[in-house]
């Protein structure tokens, strides 16, 4: 074990590792650039390096980008990556209250803890979890998708009804393109570009990034520096005290994050939303959520880092990637002759151990590298707002293009930017829309494939034990808070 560590601390490995992490922070912190794109860019480079260094580079990029997305979410209200969308509201509200630095430091520590917990679970529970994941079939995935969609609507600030509408709208938008189950083209209007559908990454970039810029442009004044970054009055001690006080919430969120990340198709963004929703539902101060609740920052940020580690579980043990980033990394692993499968822990134990040490080390190194990223970003914020906004626009365009190397996606991004402005004017929450686009295909596919398998019977959706458990969870998630509120505060009002 000691020699594994020593190998990792050599300069030839450490330098690419740190560079990869720095690049990941840059990518995550820049709205418009995503972790998926970053990993795809870095993988070909890594082949020129020795295996340990190459793996460290790739893993460094993928893990740090998820944390760094929270930085612009806090200062600019623009999430750097989809996984930061859940934490945006509360972090930005804290920033408005002059506690942005506190929010980010809290975020950093929770991300590190969440990631470490995720890696620990990955190391100890992979075989068990992977065997459990096998028993999940279409019926269970369907309910998970519905759970995710309804949670997203429920956690959106403002009207839950409008959130549900946004979710439904997102699902409708996701039906554009070729249908996987039947091969039919839907809503393509003869345009060949639309056969690929509306990719959700440019949509997210437009909805959250460009629409924010379009709104900002209508305001003034301009000469003032971007957002007030006050000299930080909070020290690390307050952050640590909060972490200790909320340790159970962090633990719960990280656990939930790892489990959700372990489900193929559910990634860091869904984990963040579910953790946020769960924290809100079980919080004693749920009305502060969306207005600067520290729980609203803790829960999603630990969950999304844990989910990145969780996504490795089916990847390593079954060869099935949990999200797009892991898919690319898996392909790279094959190039390094690491073959995922049930026997990987027996046949390639040493390589897996290296991987796990790199993953754990990345979480620890996240503290210094992430902190430097936070400081670098607040320095960048002193740049004139004009430059920042122009930069955001340029990166939004670049990021949308680089997803699939098509100019078409830039057009999609612009269209969604306009849509985002419109929706915000009508006070429709944006988060459920994106989640609808992500989960819509999953929900539809699982419903229809499940029906094909069960020969048209709806029974398995309700009678399989795992499905039943999920339906129960769904009902509990919706009813429990109502019941609790009724019991605890008989004169309580519902948030509206």
């Amino acid at each position, binding site marked *: 074990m000691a020699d594994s560590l020593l190998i990792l601390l050599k300069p030839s490995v450490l330098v690419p590792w740190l560079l990869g992490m720095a690049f990941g922070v840059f990518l995550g912190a820049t709205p418009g650039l995503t972790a998926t794109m970053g990993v795809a860019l870095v993988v070909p480079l890594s082949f020129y390096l020795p295996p340990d260094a190459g793996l460290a580079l790739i893993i460094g990029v993928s893990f740090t980008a998820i944390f760094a997305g929270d930085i612009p979410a806090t200062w600019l209200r623009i999430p750097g990556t989809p996984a930061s969308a859940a934490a945006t509201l509360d972090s930005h509200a804290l920033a408005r209250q002059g506690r942005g630095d506190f929010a980010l430091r809290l975020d950093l520590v929770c991300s590190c803890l969440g990631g470490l917990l995720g890696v620990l679970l990955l190391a100890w529970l992979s075989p068990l979890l992977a065997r459990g994941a096998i028993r999940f079939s279409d019926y269970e995935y369907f309910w998970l998708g519905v759970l995710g969609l309804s949670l997203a609507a429920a956690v959106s600030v403002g009207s839950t009804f409008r959130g549900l509408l946004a979710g439904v709208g997102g699902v409708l938008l996701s039906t554009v393109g070729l249908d996987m*189950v039947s091969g039919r083209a839907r809503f393509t209007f003869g345009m060949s570009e639309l056969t690929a559908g509306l990719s959700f990454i440019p949509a997210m970039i437009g909805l959250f990034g460009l629409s924010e810029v379009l709104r900002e442009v209508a305001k003034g004044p301009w000469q003032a520096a971007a957002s007030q970054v006050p000299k930080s009055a909070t020290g690390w001690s307050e952050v640590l005290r909060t972490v200790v006080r909320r340790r159970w919430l962090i633990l719960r969120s990280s656990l939930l994050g790892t489990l959700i990340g372990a489900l193929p198709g559910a990634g860091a963004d869904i984990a963040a939303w579910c953790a946020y929703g769960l924290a809100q539902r079980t919080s004693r101060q749920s009305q502060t959520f969306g207005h600067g609740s520290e729980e609203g920052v803790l829960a999603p940020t630990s969950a999304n880092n844990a989910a990145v580690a969780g996504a490795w579980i089916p990847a390593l043990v079954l060869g099935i990637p949990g999200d797009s980033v892991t898919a690319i990394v898996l392909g790279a692993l094959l190039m390094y002759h690491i073959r995922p499968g049930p026997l990987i822990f027996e046949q390639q134990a040493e390589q897996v151990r290296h991987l796990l040490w790199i993953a754990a080390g990345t979480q620890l190194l996240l503290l210094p590298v992430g902190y430097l990223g936070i400081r670098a970003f607040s320095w960048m914020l002193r740049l004139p707002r004009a430059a920042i906004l*122009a930069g955001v*626009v340029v990166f939004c365009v670049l990021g949308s293009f680089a997803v699939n190397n098509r100019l078409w996606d830039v057009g999609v991004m612009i269209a969604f930017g306009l849509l985002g402005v419109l929706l915000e004017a009508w006070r429709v929450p944006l988060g459920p829309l994106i989640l609808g686009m992500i989960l819509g295909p999953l929900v539809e596919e699982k419903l229809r494939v499940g029906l094909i398998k069960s020969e048209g019977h709806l029974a398995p959706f309700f009678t399989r034990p795992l499905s039943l458990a999920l339906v129960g969870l769904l009902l509990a998630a919706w009813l429990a808070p109502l019941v609790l509120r009724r019991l605890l505060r008989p004169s309580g009002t519902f948030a509206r």
Partner: protein
Amino acid sequence: MAGCAVHFYRKILSAAGLAVAWLGVCCSFGCLSGGDASSGPVYPTRTIAILCPWAPGGGSDRVARFLADQLQRELKVPVVVVNQTGGRGFIGHAAGARARPDGYTLTLATFELCTFQALGIADLSWRELTPLAQVNGDPAAILVRKDAPWSTLRELLEAARTQPGKLTMSGTAAGAAWDLARVGLLLAEGLPADAIRWVPSQGAAPALVELLGGHVDTVCCSVAEAKTQIEAGQLRVLAVMGPQRLPEVPDVPTLRELGIDWEVVGWRGLMLPRDIPPAIEKRLAQCVQNIVASEAYRQFMRENGFGIVIRQGQEFRDFLAAEEAKWNDVIARVGYRQAESAAHDPGPWLVPRLCGTLLALGTLAVAASAWLRRRAMAGAQGSGLVGPANTANEPASPLAWKRSAALAAALVGYWLAMGWLGYLVPTFLLAWGMMVWLELRQAAALVAAGVLVGLIWVLFGQVFQVALPRGVWGGLP
């Protein structure tokens, strides 16, 4: 204010004039250096792109990256893989067919190319491209769990004959390669096409999980895709659909050995756009010949479990024509184009109709309640209100929205300009223009825009080899 605006527009015009002049210079250079390759000098002189219609990390992507690496060694210019996914591979193939025939865009074509027309996905056939060489062929295989009750393919087919529609098979999307393999197999045996039900999946990997979990009975995919599970002994291969047995599974018979006249091989190859100058085609064909003869190629294919099947030139064309005819026939007989959906599938319009109805009803409800609330609000409110209430975030004056609209219009213009002028010049103009419009000092804006574009070019264009649009200078559309 008006004076500032005029001054600003004058600056924009002069910048535009400079840009046009620069364009003229570059165009003339472009014409000299490889814009017209047949009469021009040396090929290649700049980066070559291989378009891959499938996602990074997958099998086709890995093959493309290997070929890119080898071509780079042969041609001494950078060769990069550009993924353009979607539409069951259609997007990438269509982009490859649309690219300029100057030898700087190749396509990693795959099996699906011969099925687009028959399936009604699009009017694209292999004749819109110039086939260069086939470099890989992976026959379809039928897999079952190790404890399955059938030990030979014959037993499986018997079970399907006695109880049609009971057994399930998965492996990829409906109408894709392995589904068509199943259909052809059943038709060749005189069974109806739905004797074994197809359960669509997002590729082989999730289908194998379903198989291992006992949710489907069999899977049809290539041996390479199931390599890990086969080696671990969890899955058994009943038959392969190739011309001969595979070295990875030497005990598994082919369909022909079992007396079934059916063969399906998922193939990958390199293609160029149509109307490519013969000199370039010959040069690339020679390079590919060198690559497939090399030990590095054999080693790569062996390590990844990809089958080595090589066809070049006219042999490749004949193979493609035969494939097209075969799939046209099978797909027509099954009626994929006509049938809306498989049995028990509620169809592709269920979810859109449901969502559309919910959305329409919900929007009406929200609009109605907002209207009612506004009527209930007594007295004269400011009539500039949009929606139910004014949030603190919203700028109050409609004039402010004009600025947003102007920016949006500028972005649309920028988007269209990129298709013609490439990435660098329009981005520089947009960044500079936007900063000046937002009242940054012009000198500072120039520097900032220049640094931004320069950094992007260095980091993304050069180091990461992102294929930034090049507009009329060639490259990606």
